């Protein structure tokens, strides 16, 4: 082959390579355009969109199902009717992020068995609440129920045991085997007590358990540590808290009753509280209601004093990100 011929062949080869590169680049541009369009079409909703989807636009008050008989967690002063406690402050925090001022939040007492149904007593009738913030532990069985959709957890605690003061130390649930132990019928503490062959006596509420514990009907009460801690702190000379060393963590979540948009908004509120260094609502709630009762409950920790992790929420323009 002549030198000119070889040069032509080389040039032609380069031309082919160049043409193919251009073709590939054209395809790349098309793919890029497709990606951009896909992202523009599939834009996540804004908080305003979710508020509308959640049915909160035009809602005059946010109805929150809470407990009223657990000091430190959710307690209603019988004289003033005022609610206070960790759950109550968390409810105010979430309500504020949903656009409700404190006077627009209506707390309604909800029975444990009504938490999945989102139905709370209102005078002589039951009405549906928007949120249930009532020391509701997240677990698989509950998540499978029709009207249960849990938010991310807002508190980590564990199961423990409370007895009358002076009781021999309870290091393990098996120490109570064959003994009468009270728990609330819907509590997740029933299973560990039953597994340890304790004589479990389920009651409707904690007041009945406390009454039985005082008069000796029950030897112990088992439930979440954060719940029992309030009772021990209220009467430390009467009751005593025991650390039974259960590894299982109880994660309290907010039930949004199957309202997915509302669940996302609640998670956004929890996420903001977690990630925004200026937002100390969760920390203030813990410091106000749970930290002061830690000492009197030793050796049992009340709860983990850090807010649980919350996954990033897919909301456009999340205020705290």
């Amino acid at each position: 082959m002549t030198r000119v011929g070889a040069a032509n062949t080389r040039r032609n080869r380069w031309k082919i390579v160049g043409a193919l590169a251009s073709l590939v680049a054209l395809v790349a541009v098309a793919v890029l355009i497709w990606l951009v369009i896909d992202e523009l079409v599939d834009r996540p909703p804004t908080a305003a969109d979710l508020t509308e989807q959640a049915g909160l636009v035009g809602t005059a008050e946010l109805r929150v199902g809470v407990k009223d008989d657990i000091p430190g967690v959710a307690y209603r002063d019988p004289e003033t009717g005022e609610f206070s406690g960790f759950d109550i402050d968390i409810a105010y925090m979430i309500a504020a992020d949903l656009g409700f001022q404190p006077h627009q939040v209506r707390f309604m007492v909800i029975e444990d068995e009504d938490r999945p149904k989102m139905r709370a007593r209102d005078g002589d009738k039951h009405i549906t609440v928007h949120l249930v913030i009532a020391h509701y532990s997240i677990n698989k069985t509950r998540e499978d129920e029709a009207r249960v959709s849990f938010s991310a957890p807002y508190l980590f605690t564990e199961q423990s045991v409370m007895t009358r003061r002076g009781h021999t130390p309870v290091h393990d649930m098996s120490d109570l085997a064959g003994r009468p132990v009270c728990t609330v019928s819907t509590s997740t503490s029933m299973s560990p007590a039953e597994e340890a062959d304790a004589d479990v006596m389920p009651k409707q509420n904690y007041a009945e358990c406390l009454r039985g514990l005082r008069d000796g009907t029950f030897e112990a009460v088992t439930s979440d540590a954060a719940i029992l801690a309030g009772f021990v702190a209220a009467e430390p000379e009467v009751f005593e808290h025991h650390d039974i060393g259960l590894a299982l963590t109880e994660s309290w979540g907010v039930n949004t009753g199957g309202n997915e948009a509302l669940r996302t908004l609640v998670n956004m509120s929890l996420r903001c509280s977690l990630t925004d260094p200026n937002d100390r609502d969760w920390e203030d709630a813990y410091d106000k209601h749970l930290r002061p009762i830690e000492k009197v409950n030793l050796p049992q920790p009340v709860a983990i004093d850090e807010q649980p992790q919350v996954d990033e929420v897919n909301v456009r323009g999340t205020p705290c990100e």
Partner: protein
Amino acid sequence: MRVAEDVGKPGREPEARSFQWTLALLPAFPIVLLVLRLWHLGRQDLNTMLVLVQNVGPLDLVSALVISTMWVPPVVLLTGHALGLLYQVSAPARAAKRPTWLTRTADATPDWAIGFTVMWAALTWQLRFLPALAMAAVVILALTVRKRHPEDGRRIRVACLYVPLVAAAATYPLVWPAITSAVSHGEITLALVLALPPVLTLALTGPIPERIARPVIHAPATAVALAGPFVLLAIFLRTPVLPSVAIQLEALEGESAEVVLGYVVAVDDTVTTLLDDSGTVRFVPNTAVEAKVLCAGAESVPYSEVDLHGWHVEESLMEWYLPDRDPGPTDEVRCAGRPR
């Protein structure tokens, strides 16, 4: 002039007729868009649409149409022009023998119009698309030089190699902080949109294989041209054309105040006419109005968290540079339908 010439030539009649059809449909399209917008606003109810037609000024609608679609003409012009040039460069003989709508568009567009369009795009396109604009401008320049001076190796080298290299060298340092920020926020598409155009420019300044040039260029271009009006319609249907307000009504005795949400259609001496989200028209007596609040639309809420020296990637140069409205309190409860 070109149309008149083409009409006379044998074999060009169908194309010329098609071009005339395009010219006839072009002015009709915005009118159809505006009417459809009103129809959609009234939730497809003719009576509601008539109330809107009676009260909504054409200027209101045209303003909304212009603002929401200002970025579209440069997309159409620059993409069409670049593709037309690419076909002419890839298959010069075929393109000369059998001109297509793309090549005719490329031939018919003067250089100053392309320059003006690039400047228009620079003002109206969001920051994230500016590297793509630079790519389009450099590709058009390179292909124009290649088409006009096919034998001038030096000019082609400058336009097709050196200019893209200089453009890439200038672009990367400018957008690099935004690229790294996009990656750290997990916004991969944004990172690609910012980072790829300068590299792709280098490969797009040359011809593609001649044999497949026509289908590869024309098939997607035709598909996009056909889908374009519908995309525009979808964009415009989502554009607000009436102000969204919350009106707090005076509380009746023993009842709490009511807040009405909707879009203001008209205000006269006696009533304020509102259209709510469900398409219901409501006439609120002016004497019952206690307060009126303008509510922010969700359209302005950005998706990305990335900015470049304070210039948010979803803002155009115009939006960034011109003074914008103070966003105001976001916790206006009346916009959520609750009285203050």
